[in-house]
């Protein structure tokens, strides 16, 4: 999202779905995973909207849709590419919107070579490191890295490691450009316009290819193409809804990019009933990215600094945004200085670059999977689990649990005694004999946590809206909030280091760590939210809350912990606690809670008006230019400088917000345009290209490149991969499995498997299989099945159902197995069972380091799995039969004519770091 539009977050709000004329739900089972949000899809349907569901498995969402199309898991980009191809070849795009608001007319560098020309990879690919030098993807005459000189120090691999660490921010915001002056051909005819590049790139995404790869018939594809194009344009809008069915892939970011391209071509961004609805699965998962507990981000999508290119504040800021580009990221200095002032107060001065050097530096991927591997190498002493259950919820559960057994100390803070807190006595590895309780040296601290009704605070839900929840009662027993725990822990650590003269202790001793407390000694969440919002430090307004981030100064006279949240305390009032009933407001409901940025509910809503500022149609009027008042007005807060007229053109040499024209709606982007083609910012390609999942029984028919050549592989003995089609032994794992949620449980079960109602409603782990697969493998409804991968084997009750259909793909019938992943092995929960996530290995998307846990290959056998040490032998036998080595599945440039050939993977591989 960030790479396409400039901000990482859903572009609209749930209630706005009812304004849509067509809704495509792909990679999401919204009716079961977001049931209450789904009412807005039903409202739209009741008003005549067309609802289309595309998913591997028939679910309640499919049942409610007008059209359901089964798709092979992991082939979404082919389907999206074919829709793009249809739009371009039949001139169905919204011409005026595309020319004015996207980068379609921009020229791409002569150096760029597409995957078609290079046999499956884009220009700049280095098979040694599995990474791209992205400089050839740039716009004509614009370099992607503003500063040019990254120092030239350090080994090649280290630089690419740094690049990988950088990948992340893309989720967060648009990438930097050297300057805003790009070459354009508004006739879209020049062969190097983004428009023509796109047209050539998607030419091979034909209906026949969709049939071949996705298992979807040409007439089904055509039906969707006609529906979305007929329901887009001036008078009508289509919305695309996705969820983790897209993100949990080695091509996850590119899947979302595929829908972004469609929505830009059809002119659906920034408009009511349009946009891309990202459905998130946790109460504050958007918030935990905005104010990130993530290794590569600081609050407000500022990147964590990397060693080398970010050694000084100036160097750091140059890489976020060139001072000569367009858009609001050119204010990054202001946002950074305000964060530093919020954290280090008087110790942050203009003379010391506001203590920028206090922030620790990254050297590569320090994500959660890399961290677990460090645990296994005994490099990590202590680990905090805060409302998270990786023993069940993370891919490769065995690696998670074994990693924890290597820790010196583990802190688990949760409502229930989750499996991650008890793995040392009842985990699956105790049963297999791999671990013995008496040998595990890990100290474990279990802290009972306060529930949401036992503390004040804000969640940021899926549409970027902060909602304050009030404390209703005191937490029971020893339970306390994380706010209280970490405040106290910080005080205790500061006490222990008080008086230290060691320079390394300055950041913790100089930290602003003084919040008002209540009668129980608990810190005030409102005071913390106020710090996040920001305040004036000096002048006549000293002590007052900032109203918008435009009031922030870069001279140290203001402080604010997360610039995108500035305004949540506007006028000194907790805006997130607003509760004006929805029925007393319009459908935008701006006085319920508060959405970032600046309470805007649909992002990029300048695009809801034509270049002259008039609504595209009366029916879809949302935000428009009022000639009389000389400002932008409408149903929402304009996502634009409110007094900048549509006719505004920047003066020569302008930069920053002033360089945004009156018709540049994507105000966070370096050129003010929506990006059909990403000249910079992504690590695996400027346009989505289909690659097969890391483990697949199908050969990629589109390119001579099987899987994403930039995916992060970890060839370790404890992380073996199943062979894919074409590799020796692939037939041992002939089926595809995918995982999903049920309505009655929540992720790893920590908040559901301990509750009587929910446990009774969904008591037991099961697998969904088609009648055809049941016949092929002798599976019996209500009986047991054992599902096997190179990592482990698990058992599940069998549900034989027509909801899963085998799909004709690549000349054979591909069977898919559905697995809900909520259960885990332990003695504490009301309901327990084998964990589907134990089946996965660790292979990651290069951009965001998210694991591929929505698809992999497997075998299925009738009956229960072996117990104890026999389980290990059973799985080892599978690995032997499939001939699995460290190289299996892990070759990045594969298959390739110039490198190793054929199916024998025992030879020398290439590209495996």
């Amino acid at each position: 999202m960030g790479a396409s539009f400039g901000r990482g977050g859903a572009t609209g709000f749930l209630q706005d779905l009812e304004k849509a004329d067509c809704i495509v739900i792909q990679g999401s089972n919204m009716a079961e995973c977001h049931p209450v949000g789904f009412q807005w899809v039903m409202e739209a349907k009741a008003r005549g909207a067309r609802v289309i569901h595309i998913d591997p498995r028939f679910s309640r969402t499919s049942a409610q849709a007008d059209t359901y199309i089964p798709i092979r898991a992991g082939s979404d980009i082919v389907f999206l590419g074919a829709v793009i191809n249809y739009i371009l070849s039949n001139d169905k795009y919204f011409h005026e919107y595309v020319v004015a608001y996207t980068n379609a007319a921009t020229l791409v560098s002569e150096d760029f070579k597409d995957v078609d020309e290079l046999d499956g990879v884009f220009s700049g690919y280095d098979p040694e490191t599995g990474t791209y030098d992205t400089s050839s993807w740039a716009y004509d005459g614009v370099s992607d890295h503003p500063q040019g000189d990254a120092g030239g120090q350090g080994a090649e691999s280290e630089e690419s490691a740094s690049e990988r660490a950088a990948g992340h921010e893309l989720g967060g915001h648009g990438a930097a450009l050297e300057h805003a002056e790009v070459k354009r051909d508004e006739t879209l005819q020049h062969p190097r316009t983004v428009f023509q590049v796109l047209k050539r790139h998607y030419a091979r995404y034909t209906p026949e290819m969709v049939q071949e790869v996705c298992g979807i018939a040409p007439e089904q594809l055509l039906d969707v193409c006609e529906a979305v194009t007929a329901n887009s344009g001036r008078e009508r809008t289509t919305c695309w809804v996705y969820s983790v069915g897209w993100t949990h892939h080695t091509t996850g970011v590119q899947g979302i990019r595929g829908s972004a391209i469609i929505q830009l071509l059809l002119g659906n961004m920034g408009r009511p009933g349009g946009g891309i609805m990202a459905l998130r699965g946790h109460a504050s998962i958007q918030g935990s990215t905005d104010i990130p507990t993530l290794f590569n981000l600081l609050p407000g999508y500022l990147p964590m600094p990397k060693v080398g290119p970010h050694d000084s504040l100036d160097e750091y800021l140059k890489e976020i945004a060139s001072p000569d580009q367009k858009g609001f990221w050119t204010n990054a200095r202001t946002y950074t200085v305000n964060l530093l002032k919020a954290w280090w107060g008087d110790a942050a001065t203009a003379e010391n670059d506001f203590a920028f050097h206090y922030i620790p530096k990254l050297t590569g991927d320090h994500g959660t999977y890399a961290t677990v591997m460090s645990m296994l190498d005994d490099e990590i002493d202590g680990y905090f689990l805060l409302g998270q259950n990786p023993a069940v919820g993370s891919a490769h559960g065995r690696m998670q649990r074994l990693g924890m057994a290597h820790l010196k100390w583990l802190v688990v803070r949760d409502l229930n005694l989750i499996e991650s807190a008890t793995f040392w006595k009842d985990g699956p590895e105790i049963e297999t004999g791999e671990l013995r309780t008496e040998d595990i040296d890990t100290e474990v601290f279990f802290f009972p946590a306060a529930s949401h009704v036992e503390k004040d605070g804000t969640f940021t839900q899926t549409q970027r809206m902060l909602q304050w929840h009030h404390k209703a009662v005191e937490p029971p027993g020893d339970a306390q909030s994380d706010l209280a725990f970490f405040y106290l822990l910080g005080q205790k650590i500061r006490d222990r280091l008080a008086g230290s003269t060691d320079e390394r202790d300055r950041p913790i001793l100089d930290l602003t760590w003084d919040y008002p407390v209540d009668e129980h000694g608990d810190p005030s969440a409102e005071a913390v939210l106020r710090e996040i919002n920001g305040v004036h430090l000096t002048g006549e307004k000293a002590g007052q809350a900032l109203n918008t981030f435009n009031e922030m100064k870069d001279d140290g006279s203001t402080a604010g912990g997360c610039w995108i949240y500035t305004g949540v305390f506007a006028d000194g009032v907790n805006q997130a606690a607003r509760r004006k009933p929805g029925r007393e407001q319009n459908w935008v409901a701006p006085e319920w809670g508060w959405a970032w940025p600046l309470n805007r509910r649909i992002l990029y809503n300048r695009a809801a008006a034509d270049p002259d500022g008039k609504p595209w149609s009366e029916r879809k009027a949302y935000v428009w230019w009022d000639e009389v008042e000389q400002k932008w007005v409408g149903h929402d807060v304009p996502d634009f400088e409110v007094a900048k007229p549509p006719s505004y053109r920047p003066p020569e040499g302008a930069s920053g917000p002033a360089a945004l024209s009156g018709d540049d709606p994507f105000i966070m982007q370096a050129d003010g345009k929506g990006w059909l083609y990403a000249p910079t910012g992504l690590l695996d390609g400027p346009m989505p290209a289909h690659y097969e999942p890391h483990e697949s029984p199908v050969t990629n028919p589109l390119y001579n490149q099987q899987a994403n050549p930039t995916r992060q592989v970890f060839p370790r003995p404890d992380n073996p991969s199943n062979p894919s089609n074409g590799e020796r032994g692939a037939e041992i794992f002939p089926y595809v499995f995918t995982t999903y949620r049920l309505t009655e449980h929540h992720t790893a079960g920590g908040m559901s498997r301990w509750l009587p109602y929910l446990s009774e409603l969904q008591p037991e782990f099961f697998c969904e299989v088609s009648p055809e697969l049941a016949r092929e493998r002798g599976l019996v409804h209500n009986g047991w099945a054992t599902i096997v991968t190179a990592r482990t084997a698990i058992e599940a009750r069998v549900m034989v159902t027509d909801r899963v259909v085998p799909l004709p793909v690549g000349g054979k019938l591909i069977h898919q197995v559905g697995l809900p992943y909520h259960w885990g092995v332990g003695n504490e929960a009301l309901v327990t069972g084998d964990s589907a996530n134990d089946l996965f290995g660790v292979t990651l998307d290069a951009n965001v380091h998210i694991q591929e846990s929505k698809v992999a290959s497997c075998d299925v056998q009738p009956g229960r799995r072996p117990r104890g040490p026999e389980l290990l032998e059973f799985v080892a036998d599978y690995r032997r039969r499939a001939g699995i080595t460290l190289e299996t599945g892990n070759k990045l440039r594969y298959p390739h004519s110039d490198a190793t050939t054929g199916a024998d993977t025992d030879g020398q591989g290439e590209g495996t770091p």
Partner: protein
Amino acid sequence: MDIRKTFLEWPVVRQLTGSDPLGRGAAVQSKRSRSLEPRTTTADRMVQSVCPYCAVGCGQRVFVRDERVVQIEGDPDSPISRGRLCPKGSASEQLVNSPRRATTMLYRRPRSTSWERIGVEQATDMIADRMVESRRKRWQDTDEHGRPLRRTMGIASLGGATLDNEENYLIKKLFTALGAIQIENQARI
């Protein structure tokens, strides 16, 4: 004998003759059920909250009596949820009051086969000691080129997507000031 107190009071008769032919309301009430009051009306107070499960962010009304949560219902004022809750949201009173909920601080020594009880204050002190020690032991001042790193690789964290923004803010602030960088949450998973 008052005929109204005999067979005319039978539920089936009331169902057939009254205004409740489906037998889902007044027709099937007994003297006892007529005297019942919903917990929502006998509560001492109602507090507005937000559902803690998925990211739709449904409004909740939390009913409290004698300083105890007695019921959690959907908030009809919410423009997003309009009073509705899914099975998980509807069960969230059990999330608060489940008899299986852990409310006791527990500690497991190295190589021990069982939990033991310790105080929260003592446990927090023990963690503060370990934080200081692990931070120092795994400290990195510079990389191999002498460039500043100013960090520790000895302490990691996972979690945050179910926490409040204010909590995540303090966590990120504290860990960053300590030089700990391996801070992650569900957004990566």
